[in-house]
């Protein structure tokens, strides 16, 4: 499974791309497989304040709804509107077109709590198999 080296990860299966004081957030390839076909995404609004490890978005498949947590605290600056018309982008392109939201960091030290690709890979290996 593909976990790009340049990204950071959470144990709740979000990926984070750091670009200066802004970070882009999506879900990992592992997560999109577990969620299965995404049919709806509830996006956060720009200007909304979010807290690390607290819910920021909801991804819905046919049978379940999954909370997507903010990997770090900050203020939402953008959300991927393309997901409203085409939620399947999360399945087809989890690391690029399927990004979910972007936020402005309020506490850069929180980045230290995130996992590297290798650490995340190991965590996923240990996850119970269905």
């Amino acid at each position, binding site marked *: 499974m593909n976990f790009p080296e340049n990204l950071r990860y959470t144990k709740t299966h979000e990926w984070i791309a750091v670009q200066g004081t802004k970070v882009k957030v999506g879900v990992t390839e592992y997560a999109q497989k577990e969620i299965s076909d995404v049919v709806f995404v509830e996006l956060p609004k720009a200007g909304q304040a979010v807290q690390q490890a607290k*819910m920021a978005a909801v991804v*819905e498949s046919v*049978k*379940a709804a999954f*909370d997507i947590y903010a990997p770090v605290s900050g203020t939402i600056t953008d959300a991927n509107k393309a997901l409203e018309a085409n939620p399947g982008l999360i399945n087809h392109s989890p690391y690029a077109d399927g990004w979910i939201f972007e936020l402005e960091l309020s506490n850069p030290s929180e980045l230290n709590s995130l996992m590297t690709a290798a650490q995340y890979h190991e965590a996923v290996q240990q996850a119970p198999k269905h």
Partner: protein
Amino acid sequence: MPYLSLTEEEKKAMLGEIGVRSFDELIKDIPVSLRDPKISLPSSLSEPEVQDLISKLGRKNTSTKDALSFLGAGSYEHFIPAAALEIVGRQEFLTAYTPYQPEASQGTLQAIYEYQSLMTELTGLDVSNASHYDGATSLAEAALVALKHTDRPKLLVARSVHPHYRETMRTYLAGTPYKVEEFGFNEDGNFNREEFVAKLDATVAGVIFQTPNFLGLVEDLEGVSEKIHANGSLMILTSDPLSLGLFKSPGEWGADIAAGEGQPLGLSMMFGGPYLGYFVTTQALMRRIPGRLAGLTQDADGKRAFCLTLQAREQHIRRERAGSNICSNQALCALAACAYMTLLGKKGIHEIAEINWDRANYLRNKIAGLKNFEVDTMQPIFNEFRVKSKKSFAKIEEKLMAQDIFPGVALETFYPELKDQFLVCATETKSKEDLDRFVEALAQC
């Protein structure tokens, strides 16, 4: 249902598991005086004696079949075709109750789907749920949707919305940070436009109107949805669904949610329930709909099939983050409404609505001609209207009840300032002779 026995051994095992020695120890926190109180009950009766007793009690009621009833105020007497009752009584529907294993309950799901389709047509909106318990809870659920969707803390509600609905809404919101603010109605019974506009501020999540309102008047809602939407709020309308056969639909008024009481659609008055809450909204709010939704789909072989859909909204999946705690619906009552609407058809519903309008207007004009009574005349009515009496309504009621006429519902019960005013309802069940008899009796008061 099998009777589940509880042997001494089983009791012992269960008590042991909890960690107490005896049943008395289990309930030791309950004061001894409360444990086995003496309850004074009459001695037992045989089956025929019970039947006699119940029939005797039953005869104490005067049904609307035995009297001339002009009672409405949220529960209406209508003619229900025998064919509708026959459909509802079929055991495939009557005993199936609820689709616990939905995909195996195709007939029930199809009936719900058809009910939903009919409701969207009647209200002029996009998506209907499978129904709620009654109009009051349905409207309260609509209020919750507005609060959550807009993330604002306040509801603005017309005081001419059914008093019981407003009370239920307050109960729903008790203990939450949400607030309900009301705007009043004018002397003529219509909502106070100035007060509505003045109270429509940035904290308002949704505005709730009833039309025809509780006083029976069809509200003029021209320009109202534009004002509400410009403010970023939702518009919620509650209407007698049968009135929509004649008057503008919630969709045409620009409402975001239509929620209310479905009893007029083929359910008898039944002492106040079970009734049917309808809830219909726009596609934009589809994922916030409370409760159950039936959908049309295809099975693995590509054949038409019905399913429960958009379930990720619901409590059994979203848990505490679900928008509503409602997981069930009033399936049999929705089926009754479905059968009623289908039997009447588009033309029939329009005709029934017209007859209601005609009877109520005939009666209103007649009462307007009596010297001790006044009626509202500023706005159109559907099948109900307000009468202002110059004499004590309690006395009038007493006098007419003695002649087996129920003259109407006292408004003072709900609005203390509306002393000696009452609500009169005349549906298609009343003939011209019935109406004339009522007017004559009132003339003697």
